[in-house]
């Protein structure tokens, strides 16, 4: 009786452990399809198993294991180095048995929030194993291309006056004078969106944040929001930045007026980096959505760890009709070009007459 009870309890325990462990194992064994291969590939990426991930790709020419890892894991403190894959949804576009195209909707958890990416993969079936065709990222500068680039080394620092704050008549340097040169309010997706442009009219760099209050018909504040990260905060003299403030769950019909309160601050700043925005054009992406594409070129000596692109769209009367932004997950080394794409509302695509791209950035070495 003693032994049989012990065996029974042991068997029950083993069965329960089996029930708990089976589902995990199952997901690893089922890789017969192209989609499953993409899922398995990103499982390795999530677990930072670069060797297993590299084993699942057909490297194109110029793709070594190191460049593959730099491409998938990011380098130079780029946004990808501080991101992790969160969710992968796949759809097979076509599958001929030996070759397949799979579209992957990737959701990354990054240091600036959730970032969605749609990427098409071409897979080839070699001996029952689907492998992803992996080509080299555009224009990675080789050593031969490196050429000296002048760094501006222009820098402002703030020297506060020593006088005590309430000595009558004495004051520190005033904050820079900024001016909102255009503003527009629209309803979009169940939100009120306030957008416009702000210019630094002064001769010293300024740090701008913009808050807005929606005033209801009864004169009271309905909601208060800020531009948050949809603005380039640090403005050099004569620099223009777009701003956009979203009020979720509000309608323009309930708004009587908007009280905009920009806050300016005199801050130390650097004139570097100098980033050119080339080949800007509006086109449809793979999913048929209107996007503004272009290339960022770093014409200064400073590495830009996380570039942030803000695009302002104007109609033919020059009015701002939309502002959108996007983060690049690749760092921008001197002399390097990196492609970018920023969404544009499909319903406005044909009204857009002109556009302007501003590049904001974060440098980990700066702070």
């Amino acid at each position, binding site marked *: 009786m003693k032994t049989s009870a012990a065996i029974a309890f042991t068997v029950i325990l083993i069965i329960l452990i089996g029930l708990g462990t089976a589902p995990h194992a199952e997901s690893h064994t089922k890789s017969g399809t192209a989609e499953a291969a993409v899922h398995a590939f990103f499982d390795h990426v999530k677990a930072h198993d670069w060797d297993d991930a590299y084993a699942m790709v057909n490297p194109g020419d110029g793709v070594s294991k190191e460049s593959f890892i730099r491409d998938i894991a990011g380098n130079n403190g780029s946004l990808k180095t501080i991101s992790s894959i969160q969710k992968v949804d796949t759809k097979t576009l076509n599958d001929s048995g030996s070759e397949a195209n799979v579209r992957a909707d990737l959701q990354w958890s990054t240091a600036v929030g959730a970032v969605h990416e749609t990427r098409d993969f071409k897979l080839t079936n070699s001996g029952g194993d689907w492998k992803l065709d992996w080509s080299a990222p555009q224009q990675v500068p080789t050593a031969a291309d490196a050429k000296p680039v002048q760094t501006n080394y222009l820098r402002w620092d703030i020297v506060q006056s020593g006088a005590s704050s309430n000595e009558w*008549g004495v004051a520190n340097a*005033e904050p820079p004078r900024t001016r909102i040169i255009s503003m527009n309010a629209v309803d979009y997706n169940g939100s009120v969106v306030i957008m416009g442009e702000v*210019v630094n*009219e002064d001769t010293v760099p300024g740090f701008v944040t913009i808050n807005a209050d929606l005033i209801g018909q009864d004169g009271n504040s309905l909601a208060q929001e800020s531009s948050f990260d949809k603005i380039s905060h640090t403005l*050099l003299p004569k620099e223009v930045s777009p701003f956009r403030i979203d009020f979720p769950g509000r309608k323009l019909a309930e708004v009587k007026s908007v009280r905009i309160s920009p806050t300016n601050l005199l801050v130390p700043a650097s004139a570097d980096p100098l980033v*050119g925005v080339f080949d800007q054009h509006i086109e449809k992406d793979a999913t048929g959505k209107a996007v503004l594409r272009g290339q960022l*070129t770093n014409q200064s000596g400073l590495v830009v760890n996380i570039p942030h692109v803000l695009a302002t769209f104007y109609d033919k009367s020059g009015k701002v009709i939309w502002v959108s932004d996007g983060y690049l997950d690749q760092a921008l080394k001197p002399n390097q070009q990196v492609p970018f794409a920023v969404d544009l509302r499909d319903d406005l695509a044909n009204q857009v007459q002109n556009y302007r791209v*501003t590049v904001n950035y974060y440098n980990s070495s700066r702070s």
Partner: protein
Amino acid sequence: MTKNFNTLFIILALACAAYAQITVPQQATAGESATLTASSGGTLYLIGPGTAIKRDVKSGEVTLSADDLAYAGRYTAIVNGNAQSLYVSPAKPQKLSFMARPSRVPVAQPNVISGAVFVLDHNDNLVTQPGAVKFELGVTGQAPVSQSVPTKDGIAYIRAASGKREGPAQFTASVGDIVVRRIVQQVASDPCNLRMKAQRSGNDIAVETEPVRDCSGNPVPDGTIVTFIETTNEHGKSTVDARVKHGIAKAMLPAQPGATLTVASGVVLGNEIRWGGQ
């Protein structure tokens, strides 16, 4: 017997009180001593701005120290229930509170610099007596603009235009030998006659502005943003927000045949170049 004596004593005291007299000076100055006379001894109370004194005094002259009368205003002296008021006027000007704004101003702008002066004595009393404040504003190497403004209730103010030359302007206010100095940094205003030139540089076009100056000829400060824009039919648009350095802004644009190059800074547009070169 003792009851009668007490009654007599009270009557005498009341009589003395009624008879006691104080005489105060007609005019006193803040921060200077003064003398009042009391016809009988007793407790002196002196109540006034910043003052609440209680002191036993004998009959005759009572000296009030400079510290007792530090602040201008109305004082009340009370001895044995008798009170007299005296007005202490502010002393001569010793200090100037000079508010000059702004600390940074574009050149050649009318009425942008303002100065307001409050004339005070050494105890921060407002010197309300009439007087005059001399204002001077000038950039080194140029003759300063000077103007004398009468004070009204201790205040004088002036508005002035900014000079044509950029640089730190000395803005002074003086009353007699009391001088207070402020610095107003006159800076270049918006760029004027923005012009650029372009030349081939490998696969790119090197664009460079002529020294960027404002309409008064002052070079714009380093770091000012100058935007170069290249528009083509096939390759869309390319822009570079260059920074002025030593008065000149440079950038590299991709060499696209048939491109149109333009330059702008803030709200000012410069010249346009049509790039036909290969």
